[in-house]
């Protein structure tokens, strides 16, 4: 079964149609890279799937269950929206770490708050919180920041901040992890460490959608490439198909410009 299926996702801002019917789906463990020129609607698509914007039309299915249906016209309750949200994780272009918390606290905050809703929270509070803390530590280890646990975001480099934010997103075990140009706010010499972390996640079967301008990285890490232009998916396929042998002329033009 598809872990994520997006059908006919459409979104306008005022009169501007930004998404004009996006369709794609992915299997568990798959890594999809989304490429396309700036303004083509990549960010808007991620924001709609993560409920930061409400799509006008289309459906989103997770594990075959419809979690969003634009046609129903019903507005989701905040509780439903939260439940949906927890299917996904989103790594922002500019990290958005919480400045008043240490790296470890940033990672552990959401799981701790979520755990308060567990029925056994009162009885096993100590143990639950200790487990969350341990998990947060191991996530920071995983992104290579075990020695920065107790540092505040302002004490970290951009690359380190982005790695904390990846650990933070992983802490809730999302079914699909989305990245919106995770390296484009970083100095070129820092992009490598982020790409390294993402590549490592890919080998561990984390299901990911990565919006990126790093074509070589996309080719290297992704099982599938989606090329977007003007709010539609123009071409999709394996990296060999889309990057090395693009069929659509817009894809060809886009790739040519990058060279």
């Amino acid at each position, binding site marked *: 079964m598809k872990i994520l299926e997006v059908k006919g996702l459409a979104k306008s801002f005022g009169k501007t149609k930004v998404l004009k019917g996006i369709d794609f789906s992915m299997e568990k463990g798959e890594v999809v890279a989304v490429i396309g020129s700036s303004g083509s609607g990549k960010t808007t698509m991620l924001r709609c799937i993560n409920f930061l914007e409400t799509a006008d039309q289309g459906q989103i299915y997770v594990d075959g269950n419809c979690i969003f249906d634009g046609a129903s016209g019903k507005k989701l309750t*905040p509780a439903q929206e939260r439940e949906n949200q927890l299917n*996904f994780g989103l790594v*922002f272009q500019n990290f*958005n*770490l*919480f400045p008043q918390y240490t790296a470890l606290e940033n990672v552990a*905050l959401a799981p701790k*708050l979520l755990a308060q809703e567990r029925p056994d929270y009162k009885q096993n509070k100590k143990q639950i919180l200790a487990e969350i803390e341990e998990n947060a530590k191991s996530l920071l280890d995983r992104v290579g920041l075990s020695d920065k646990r107790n540092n505040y975001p*302002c004490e970290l480099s951009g690359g380190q901040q982005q790695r904390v*934010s990846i650990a933070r997103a992983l802490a809730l075990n999302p079914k699909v992890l989305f990245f919106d140009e995770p390296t484009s706010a970083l100095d070129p010499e820092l992009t490598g460490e982020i790409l390294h972390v993402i590549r490592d996640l890919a080998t561990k079967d984390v299901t990911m959608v990565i919006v990126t301008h790093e074509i070589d990285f996309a080719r290297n890490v992704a099982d599938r490439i989606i090329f977007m232009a003007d709010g539609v998916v123009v071409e999709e396929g394996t990296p060999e198909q889309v990057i090395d042998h693009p069929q659509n002329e817009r894809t060809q033009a886009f790739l040519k410009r990058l060279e």
Partner: protein
Amino acid sequence: MSIFITVTLSLLEGLWTTFKIFALTLLMALPLGLIISFGSMSKIKVIKWPIKFLIWVIRGTPLMLQLIVFGFGPGLLGIDGMDTFVAVMIAFVLNYACYFSEIFRGGIEGIPKGQYEAGKVLGLTKSQVFFKIVLMQVVKRIIPPMSNEFLTLVKDTSLANTIMIYEITWNAKRFMNSEHILWPLFYSGVFYLAFCGILTLIFGYIEKKLDYYRG
């Protein structure tokens, strides 16, 4: 020497009233200010615009005039028996709540949208986002303007004597009339200075405490 002691005791008595106005105003105006700031940011027009109007009126007229309105207004309307101190408190709380609300609003609106969005995608509820993520950052941002308001409030309490509240300045002025001496007024300045000095130290301490992070 005995007159010095008399004056000191009298001023200390006034200082207690001054302090009461100060503390009670903060106690009520801070939460009310937060509520008013939410109102002024509301998307619902029938909430937002009346609140904006109230803020405009309160900030656009002298506090002394507001004291007179609340102090003498009820009497003029035939409502007797409202305690003058209560009138003073209403005027101060309303006035300061409006100023605080604008500071809160500035602080809240200054928090980057990304902070709310990061909280939201992590499955936090709206109130968790506010209390666990936004509030601390707002507090840090508003400490400097707040410390200004607190100091202004200390000195504004002297306006209460216009409607016969016997705070420190009133007590100092009393000697001008009865003993024909001016120095108790100058002396009262020392009390204000000490009060503000303590506040400045407290704010300095809080600012330092919150200095552990940037942003």
